[in-house]
């Protein structure tokens, strides 16, 4: 009997040892593969400690920090396929306290966000998400936008972030931030918001819009031209809205050529054209229509089975355009009878070489 118990004890011990090591290896591999998840695990750990009440007094403080930075970074990472520039920013929440002096505060020139210990319905997360989205994720994007356009973009992106990462606080955000700005639905902000939603439903066009704003944010302009740039942004929204609402087979204007923002959308789709001339038709179109207009960004869109043709078109412009990004998206398209079709689309972004950061006054 004793021998049997020893054998069982040994088996359990060896098993526990192996499973302990296996668990450790699994954790290390998972951390290595998903460094962003570590913050969320930390948040979970501190949340568990919070259940012990005042025994772990600082647990809530650490929970708020890791939950906020973990979820914001997770959101940015998830959007990286649609909007790669978002993922280039990693947010870190840093607590300040007694070590701060008036001199260092004035010198550092940074906002200090207040996070509450009485965190009713996790409002800390809502307040933090608003500040981080505007100040970090959309920092360059918002630079040249009109106030209402900018506010609508922030409201739209924060709503997306909360819906994805923390749906339980969406109602607080709606109540405290969105509804007061929404008015009766006829405000400029409400109209912009509705337009962004239409662009986003097309899956492709909201990221295109954000990306173009990001490109604009990378330029500096000589002279006071904010009004002109804001007018271009309004026209860009209208242009993309029209493109997003077009039906399959519609022939419409797919070029947007203004002074500071020049975009061309090239749809590589017609199978008869592909069968007859391969990539040549689109190479010719870009050479004759987009290159002479100094189009800065070209979005090539087509079914994944046309990837080879799209890549061939890109290769033809190797000297003048840089392949900035390529990805496959699920998008919604309207058929000619108005029904919604869900399709996969391969998208390549070409960005012209040698764009001047400084745009001198005309």
């Amino acid at each position, binding site marked *: 009997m004793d021998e049997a118990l020893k054998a069982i004890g040994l088996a359990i011990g060896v098993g526990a040892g192996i499973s302990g090591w296996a668990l450790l290896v699994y954790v290390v591999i998972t951390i290595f593969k998903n460094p962003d998840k570590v913050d969320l695990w930390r948040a979970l750990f501190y949340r568990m400690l919070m259940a012990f009440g005042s025994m772990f007094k600082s647990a809530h403080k650490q929970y*708020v920090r890791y939950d906020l930075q973990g979820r914001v970074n997770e959101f940015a990472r998830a959007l990286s396929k649609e909007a790669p520039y978002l993922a280039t920013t990693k947010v870190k929440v840093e607590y300040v306290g007694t070590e701060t002096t008036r001199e260092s505060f004035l010198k550092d020139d940074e906002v200090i966000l207040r996070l509450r210990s009485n965190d009713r319905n996790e409002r800390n997360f809502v307040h933090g998400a608003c500040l*981080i989205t505007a100040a970090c994720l959309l920092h360059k994007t918002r630079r040249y936008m009109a106030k209402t356009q900018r506010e609508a973009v922030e409201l739209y992106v924060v709503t997306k972030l909360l819906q994805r990462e923390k749906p339980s606080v969406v109602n607080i955000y709606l109540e405290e931030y969105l509804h007061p700005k929404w008015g009766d639905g006829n405000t400029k902000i409400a109209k912009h918001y509705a337009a962004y939603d239409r662009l986003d439903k097309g899956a492709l066009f909201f990221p295109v819009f954000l990306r173009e704003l990001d490109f604009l944010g990378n330029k500096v302009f000589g002279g006071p031209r904010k009004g002109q740039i804001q007018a271009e942004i309004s026209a860009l929204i209208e242009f993309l809205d029209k493109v997003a609402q077009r039906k399959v087979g519609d022939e419409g204007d797919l070029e947007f050529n203004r002074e500071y923002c020049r975009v061309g959308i090239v749809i590589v789709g017609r199978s008869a054209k592909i069968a007859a001339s391969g990539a040549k038709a689109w190479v010719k179109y870009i050479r004759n229509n987009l290159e002479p207009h100094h189009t800065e960004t070209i979005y090539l869109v087509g079914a994944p089975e046309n990837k080879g043709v799209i890549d061939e078109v890109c290769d033809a412009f190797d000297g003048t355009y840089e392949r900035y990004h390529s990805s496959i998206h699920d998008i919604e398209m309207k058929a000619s009878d108005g029904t919604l079709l869900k399709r996969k689309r391969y998208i390549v972004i070409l960005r012209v070489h040698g764009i001047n950061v400084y745009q001198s006054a005309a």
Partner: protein
Amino acid sequence: MEAERTSVKAVYDDDLVALLRALDVYGDFTAHRLRCAFCRDTITWDNLYALYPDSGAVKCCCSKPDCVEGLLAKRSEKAH
């Protein structure tokens, strides 16, 4: 692509009084003389959203959405 690290500074309530003292505004805060830089409402324990430096002074922003937007716009203009 290497990610750019952006830090967001925050103060937790447990350290707020010490921070206000360190910034030399605690007296004004307790005497209800500290005001939101955007709407001029008195800053209280309930409505303080953020602190920020501006023209060599310590400024506060309350938690009204318009004031938060004002703060973000101000910081954005400054960065530009």
